[in-house]
């Protein structure tokens, strides 16, 4: 049951195409899994289309039309089959990975957490998968920037509540928390950061100077 969704402002920037690539990717995985957000995004896209149709047209010459017509023969119409993928990994993530979650390169951070960085090409954002062992706790940390989190498998809880598969969360600068994965299963989530985390837990503070944004 998905209880947490992107807000309307985020969906608006998403549908207008103005979100940075890594953030747009994260929002799109949620939207494609969530019918409620899909309907809202659909309306926001219709809004864009209405604005598009209301633009003041700029003349396009017949030479342009002829140039396109001349190319049509080379462009075979595409037949659309249903994608019908059976994988439970979202299609967009599959494009960024080779193989499965287990085939990725993971870096261990303590005993409960490991991280795998994926390359989106967005120079301003880190796009990473977090794997938290069942019942494992991520050391308390604060956010220097904005963090988007999408839960792909399992779930976690922190002082503010508990979150499950499909939930989409945004943490703002200064939000402090120490998420703990559900006891029943491992948690895998996608996190998109525009600034490194900062550990507030004294045992992990030594790491702070070494935390850099990995946009790969």
């Amino acid at each position, binding site marked *: 049951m998905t209880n947490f969704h992107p807000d309307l402002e985020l969906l608006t920037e998403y549908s207008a195409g103005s979100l940075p690539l890594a953030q747009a990717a994260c929002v799109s995985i949620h939207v494609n899994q969530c019918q409620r957000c899909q309907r809202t995004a659909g309306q926001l896209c219709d809004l864009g289309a209405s604005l598009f149709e209301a633009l003041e047209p700029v*003349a396009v010459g017949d030479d342009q039309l002829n140039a396109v017509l001349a190319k049509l023969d080379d462009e075979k119409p595409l037949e659309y089959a249903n994608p019908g993928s059976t994988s439970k990994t979202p299609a967009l993530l599959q494009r960024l990975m080779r193989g499965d979650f287990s085939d990725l390169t993971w870096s261990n951070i303590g005993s409960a957490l490991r991280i795998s960085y994926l390359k989106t090409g967005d120079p301003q954002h880190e796009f990473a998968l977090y794997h938290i062992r069942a019942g494992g706790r991520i050391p308390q940390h604060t956010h220097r920037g904005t963090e988007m989190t999408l839960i792909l498998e399992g779930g976690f809880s922190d002082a503010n509540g508990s979150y499950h598969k499909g939930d989409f969360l945004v943490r703002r600068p200064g939000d402090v928390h120490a998420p703990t994965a559900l006891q029943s299963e491992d948690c895998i989530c996608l996190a998109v950061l525009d600034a490194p985390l900062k550990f507030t837990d004294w045992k992990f503070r030594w790491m702070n100077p070494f935390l850099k944004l990995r946009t790969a």
Partner: protein
Amino acid sequence: MLIVANTTDDEGNPLIDADGKRIDEWSECLTLIAQKQDRAAFTRLFRHFAPLMKAFALSGSTLSANHADELVQEVMLKVWQKAAGFDAEKAAASTWIYTIARNCRTDLYRRLQKFDTPLSAEDVSDSQESDEAFVVLHQKRSRDRIRGLIKELPNDQAQILVKVYMEGKTHSEVSGELDLPLGTVKSRVRLALQKLQIQLER
């Protein structure tokens, strides 16, 4: 002032199909392209949409006229190629075409910035259309409602929506450009969406 295109023929009569349903000319063109590779239908579509695409390409961006022309050609070729993926029962032709134009423009920006990414804008756009009849009907109603209500938006709200959608600016870029506090920009967008009755479902 926003003027919204209508779905009538040259004499101003609404287009009616054999079952007496009103259909829109552009859906019909896309269907003809998909089924018969109809060049006349493609030409009609081009004459209507290419000038809008060019306007969209030049909106608030630094694209040169050459790049704008390149974009128009690219989008129109995509329209030709993908027409079979258009479903007139589920989507509006204008929304379908706008989505292609938006994605191609984003990809062109990224190419020009030498962005090295395995993802295209289409990969990160929401692509799924619902199969459920009531959802389809609901979407169609909301689309007609948005088209109607958008004309009644106060100018200060419409102007910001144009910057966000047509110029592809973030809320904070709009705030800088219009010299308005970010909160004002956000609240105008919020008010506009409220008037258009676009909201998150609970």
